[in-house]
C-alpha cells in the first residue's frame, strides 16, 4: 500500500465542499472545527454551537478573547451580524428537532449500519460524553471526518463497532483520509477514493465490505 493519504486539513476541505449555501451546521469539538475554515466561496454556512450561539465566527485574535463568548469546545469565538443567543434546552431542541442541516463529527469507529463510536475507548478512566449523543440525532445529515485507519493501522470503518456506541444507525457519510463513503441500507457505499489508491489497497484497510453503486469518483483535494 502506498503511503498517500489526505491531511486533516484536506479531509476537512472535502467535507466543507458538501455544505450547501445557507446550511445550518454543527461542527464537533476538535478536528471537525477545522471544516469552518474551508467553506466554499460564495456560500454562507451558519454555525451552531451547543452552548447556545447561532452564527458565530472564527476565533478572535489572541488577547481579544471574551470568555463569555465561547463554543462547545470552550474556545473563544466571535459573532457575525445576525447572531443569536439561547439557553441549552433551546439549543439542543435545535439539534434533536431536526433543524440542523449538517452535523460533522469525529469518530473512533463507524460501522456499516451507521453506528458511531466516538466518545470512549474502553471503560477505564473518567467517562465524558458531552453533546455527542445528541448531535448524532436530529441533524438532517450526520457526517464523520476521520483518518481511514487508527494510528496503529486498524480500520475505523468496521463491520460493527467494538467501542462503546455514541449512536445507532446515525451516520450517513464518512469523509476519510482515503475515501468518501456513504452509508445506505446497512452498507458502506464507496463514492470517491484517492486516484493513487487501488480498490484492493482501499479494501485492505477497510473493516467491512465496500459496495459500489455506479462510478467511483476521484477524491481530488488541493494542497493545503
Amino acid at each position, binding site marked *: 500500500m502506498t503511503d498517500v493519504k489526505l491531511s486533516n486539513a484536506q479531509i476537512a476541505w472535502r467535507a466543507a465542499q458538501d455544505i450547501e449555501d*445557507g446550511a*445550518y451546521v454543527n461542527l464537533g469539538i476538535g478536528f471537525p472545527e477545522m471544516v469552518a475554515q474551508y467553506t466554499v466561496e460564495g456560500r*454562507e454556512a*451558519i454555525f*451552531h454551537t451547543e452552548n447556545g*450561539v*447561532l*452564527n458565530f465566527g472564527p476565533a478572535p485574535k489572541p488577547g481579544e478573547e471574551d470568555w463569555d463568548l465561547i463554543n462547545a469546545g470552550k474556545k473563544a469565538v466571535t*459573532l457575525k*451580524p*445576525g*447572531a*443569536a*443567543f*439561547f439557553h441549552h*434546552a*433551546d439549543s*439542543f*431542541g*435545535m*439539534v*434533536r*428537532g*431536526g*433543524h*440542523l442541516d449538517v452535523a460533522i463529527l469525529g469518530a473512533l469507529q463507524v460501522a456499516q449500519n451507521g453506528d458511531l463510536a466516538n466518545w470512549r475507548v474502553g471503560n477505564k478512566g473518567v467517562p465524558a460524553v458531552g453533546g455527542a449523543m445528541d448531535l448524532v*440525532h*436530529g441533524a438532517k445529515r450526520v457526517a464523520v471526518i476521520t483518518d481511514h485507519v487508527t494510528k496503529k493501522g486498524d480500520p475505523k470503518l468496521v463491520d460493527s463497532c467494538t467501542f462503546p456506541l455514541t449512536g445507532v444507525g446515525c451516520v450517513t457519510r464518512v469523509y476519510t483520509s482515503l475515501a468518501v463513503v456513504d452509508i445506505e441500507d446497512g452498507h458502506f457505499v464507496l463514492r470517491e477514493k484517492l486516484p493513487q489508491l487501488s480498490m484492493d489497497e482501499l479494501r485492505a484497510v477497510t473493516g467491512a465490505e465496500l459496495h459500489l453503486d455506479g462510478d467511483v469518483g476521484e477524491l481530488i483535494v488541493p494542497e493545503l
Partner: protein
Amino acid sequence: MDKTCPGLKEAVAEIPDGAVVMIGGFGGSGAPIELIHTLIDAGPKNLTVINNNAGNGKIGIAAMIDAGMVAKMICSFPKSSDPRAFTDRYMAGEIELELVPQGTLAERIRAGGAGIPAFYTPSSYGTELAEGKPVAEFDGRPYVQERWLKADYALIKAELADPYGNLTYRMAARNFNPLMAAAAEKTIVQAHKIVPAGDIEPEQVITPGIFVDKIVEVADAKQEEELIRAGVTYD
C-alpha cells in the same frame, strides 16, 4: 443569507391542499391576519389548523372556516366573543375538533420543535380529554402521556425580523408564535419591520433564524381584536 420575501402572496403560495398549518396568536394578540387573509385568497382546501382558538367574528381563522378551507381544528378554546363560524360548522358536523388543554397544546408544540416525541403531564389526568391516552405513575403521582405536535407550515406574526430570520415579538403577542416557528417544517413570518442583520441584539432574539424560512414585512398590519371590535368582515 436573505429570507425576505417580496410579498404576502409569494409567501403563502406554496401551501397545498391538506396541509397542517399552525397559526400563531392568542385571540387577536399576535395573530398574523394579513398572512391568513392572503392564504384565503390562495384558497388551499382541507387544511388542519392549529391555534389556541378557532376564530372570532368574520376575519382571520373564522374567515378561513367560513371559506370552507378548514377540515380540522386543533385548539384549546374554540369559543370567542363571536364564535359563529366554528360553531355552525362544528354543530353541522362539517369540521373536526381535537380539543387540547392549553398548556398541553403549548407543550406538544414545543416538543414537536425540540424533537421530543412524547412526554408526561399531570394535566387532564382523570378527565375525558385523557381517555385512550397512556397513563404512568412517577414518584407516586399519575400522569398522562402526550405526543408532540408538528406542522407543515407555521404562520407567525413578529415585531422585528432580520434577513436571517431572527425575530422579536411585541408584548404578549409572543404567546404561541415562537413555539410554532420551531415546530413547523416551514415557517412563514409577517414582521412589522425587517431590519438589517445585526440590528437585533443577539441577546434579545426570541426566535433564532434557524426556525424561520420566509419573512414578509407588513408595516401596517392590523390587530385582529381591533378589526373584530370594528365589525370588519373579510371578503
